[in-house]
C-alpha cells in the first residue's frame, strides 16, 4: 500500500472506527488502459453512521462514481484494480468473494442511478423489474413480491400503483421513473443507499420532490445515504457530512455547515463561487480556471496546484513537489488538504472570497 495517503491524521491507519456503519479506508481504484494507468481514486477515506447522509461532491472525473461502484462491488470481475478496505457493518467488501458480494448488492447496499430512463430495462415492465429485485434476495412467492412492489410504488408516491405496475419505463415521466428507481432500490430495505446524481436528469421542481422523498424514506428506514452530486444545493438539502473530492482524493471533509460557511480549500472556494445566487446581481458566474486533471498523469504535489489562485501563499515549491496531508482543523471533524496554514486560509476566505460570494 502506498505510504503517502495512508498516514493521514484524520483517519489513522491503526484502529478502525468501530462505531461506523460504513468505513472506507485508503481506497485506491485504478484502471489499466491502452493509454496508461488511470488512477481514478487515490487513497480515499471516510466513514458514515446509520441514519446519516454523506454528500460527495466534485467535478466529473474526480472519482465520485468510481467510489460508489467500488462500494457496490461492481468493479469485481472487471479490469479495475481495487485496493484498500471498505468495511460495511463488520464485513470487508474489497476482499469479499464475488458470490457473497452479490448477495449484499441490492439487499444491504443498493444504488440509485443518474438517468432512470437508461438505467431501467426498456423491455420489462416497471413492476416486474421491482419484483425481480425482491426475488433475488427473498425466498417468497411471486404474489408476495408483487404485493411488495405495488406497496413500494405507492410509498414513493406513484398514483394508482397497481395499474402503473404494468407500465414500461418509457411510459413514465422522468420524475416518475426516478421514483420507481428509488422504489426498486428500496425493495429489500437496504441499510446503505448510494444515490449517484439522483436528480441530475430531472427538472428543478421534480428534483425537490425526489429529495424530499429520499429524506422521508431515510427517516422511516434509518438507512445511511451517500449522495453523489456536483450540485451543492442538493448537498445542502440532504447531507449532514460532506466530502469534496478532487483528482481521486478528498481535499476537504467535514460537516456540511463547516464547509458551506467556513470552507478552507481553494477548490471548495471555487465550487462555492460558481453557484448562481438570486442576490448576485448581473455579474458573470465565477468558474474555476482550467479543467479537471488527467487521471493518467496526475499533477505532482497537490493535484489542484495548476488551477490554484493562491500558490503564492505557499513558500517554495511545496505545491508542486509534496502532496499535502488531509489535516484536521482545530480538533474538529473538519479537515482540508492544503499547504496554506489554516489561520491563513481562514483569513483569505473572510477577506477575499466571502465578500464576492
Amino acid at each position, binding site marked *: 500500500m502506498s505510504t503517502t495517503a495512508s498516514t493521514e491524521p484524520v483517519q489513522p491507519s491503526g484502529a478502525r472506527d468501530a462505531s461506523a456503519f460504513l468505513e472506507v479506508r485508503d481506497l485506491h481504484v485504478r484502471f489499466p488502459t491502452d493509454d496508461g494507468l488511470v488512477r481514478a481514486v487515490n487513497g480515499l477515506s471516510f466513514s458514515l453512521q446509520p441514519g446519516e447522509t454523506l454528500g460527495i461532491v466534485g467535478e466529473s472525473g474526480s472519482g465520485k462514481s468510481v467510489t460508489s461502484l467500488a462500494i*457496490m462491488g*461492481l468493479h469485481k*470481475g472487471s479490469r479495475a484494480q481495487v485496493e484498500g478496505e471498505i468495511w460495511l457493518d463488520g464485513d470487508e467488501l474489497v476482499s469479499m468473494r464475488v458470490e457473497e458480494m*452479490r*448477495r*449484499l*448488492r*441490492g*439487499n444491504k447496499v*443498493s*444504488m440509485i*442511478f443518474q*438517468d432512470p430512463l*437508461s*438505467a*431501467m*430495462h*426498456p*423491455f420489462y415492465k416497471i413492476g416486474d423489474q421491482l419484483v*425481480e*429485485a425482491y426475488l*433475488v*434476495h427473498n425466498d417468497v412467492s411471486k404474489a408476495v413480491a408483487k404485493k411488495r412492489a405495488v406497496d413500494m410504488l405507492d410509498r414513493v408516491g406513484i398514483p394508482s400503483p397497481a395499474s402503473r405496475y404494468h407500465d*414500461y419505463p*418509457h411510459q413514465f415521466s422522468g420524475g416518475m421513473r426516478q421514483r420507481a428507481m428509488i422504489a*426498486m432500490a428500496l425493495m429489500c430495505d437496504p441499510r446503505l443507499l448510494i444515490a449517484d446524481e439522483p436528480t441530475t436528469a430531472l427538472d428543478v421542481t421534480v428534483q425537490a420532490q425526489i429529495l424530499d422523498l429520499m429524506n422521508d424514506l431515510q427517516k422511516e428506514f434509518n438507512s445511511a445515504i451517500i449522495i453523489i452530486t456536483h450540485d451543492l444545493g442538493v448537498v445542502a438539502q440532504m447531507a449532514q457530512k460532506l466530502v469534496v473530492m478532487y483528482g481521486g482524493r478528498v481535499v476537504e471533509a467535514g460537516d456540511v455547515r463547516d464547509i458551506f460557511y467556513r470552507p478552507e480549500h481553494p477548490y471548495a472556494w471555487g465550487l462555492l463561487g460558481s453557484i448562481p445566487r438570486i442576490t448576485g446581481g448581473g455579474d458573470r458566474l465565477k468558474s474555476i480556471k482550467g479543467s479537471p486533471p488527467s487521471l493518467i498523469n496526475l499533477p505532482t504535489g497537490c493535484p489542484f496546484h495548476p488551477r490554484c489562485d493562491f500558490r503564492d501563499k505557499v513558500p517554495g515549491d511545496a505545491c508542486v513537489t509534496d502532496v499535502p496531508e488531509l489535516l484536521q482543523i482545530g480538533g474538529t471533524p473538519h479537515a482540508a488538504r492544503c499547504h496554506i496554514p489554516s489561520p491563513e486560509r481562514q483569513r483569505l476566505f473572510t477577506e477575499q472570497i466571502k465578500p464576492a460570494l
Partner: protein
Amino acid sequence: MFNYIVRRLLQMVLILFAISAITFFLFWATPANPALLICGKDCNTERIAEVNASYGFDDPLIVQYGRYMSGLVNPGGRELGSEGSQEHCSWPCLDRSLQNGLQVTDSIADAIGPTFWLATGAAVLWLVSGVLLGLLAALRKGKWLDKLSVGLALFGVSFPTLVLGYLLVFVFIVKGGLLPYPDQANSSPSAGLVPFFQFYILPWVTLALVNAALYTRLTRANMIDTMNEDFIRTARAKGLGERQVVFKHGLRAALTPIVTIFGLDLGALLGGAVITERIFSIQGLGKLSIDSVLGNDLPVVMGVVLVAAFFVVFANIVVDVLYAFIDPRVRLS
C-alpha cells in the same frame, strides 16, 4: 394493430402489382423473342406469324399484360390457349410455361417445397451458430475464443458460396463417399428423416456459412454494446447472478435488432437460392427462375419474380409486427 396489419397487406398488393408491371414490360424491352423459341427448328415467317397470333404476342403490350393479370385478379381464374390446347387455369393463375406447357402455378408449387426446406434449415443453422458464437465472443471479449470467432467470421464472409458448395460435394460425396448423391425423391421429410438430412445437410452448410459469419459479428457487436448499457449495471446492482444478467437482460436487448435482419434474410431466401440449388441439383425456385430467364420463358419469370417479391414484402410486415411485441417502445399505428 389490426388496422395496421390490414393497411400493410393492402400496401403489399399494390407493391406486387407494380412489380408485375415492371417485370412484364422490362421483359419485352429486351430483345427476347419467345415466338422464335416456340416455333422451333424448321421455322419460317408463316409459322412465326401463326405462333404470334395463337399466343397473342401480336396484341399491344397493355392488352397482353391485362390478359396475364386477369388470371390473378379474377377469382375464377382464366381459360388458357387456343383451340386444341385449351385448359382451365384456376386462381391464382400465372399462365403456362412457354417451354413445357405446364401451368406455372403448379411448377411453383412443386418448387416451393425444396426451397422452403433449404432456406429454413439453413436459417436455423446460421441463426443458432451465429448467435451462439457471437455471444461467446462478446462474453470473452479480447480472449482467444473471441479472436477465433472473429477470425472464423472473416473466413466465412470471404469464402465464396460457389467454391464452398463444390468443395463440400467433392469432399463428402465424390471422394469421401460419406453422403449419397442428391436424389430429388429425398427433398421432403416425407421420404424419411435420415435421407432428408443427408440430402440437405451440405446445402444448408453452404447456404448458412456467409450468414453465420455475419450474424456472429452482429451478435458480438450488439452484445458488447448492450453489456455496457446502464440497465445492465442496474441488473448487477440488484444482485442478480451473472447468468441472469447476461441472458435475461443482455441477450434479450442484443437480439432485438437481429430479429429484424433474420426475418428479412429468410424472406429473401424463400425466393430461391440460385447457386446453392444449382450446385446440389435441388429443384427449387432458384433453379426454376434461372431456367426461365435463360429460356426467355416470360410466364415463369413473372411467376417466380412475384413469389419472391411476395416473400420479401411479407417478411417485412411480419418483422414489423413482431418488433412491436418484442420492443414495447414500438407502437404500431
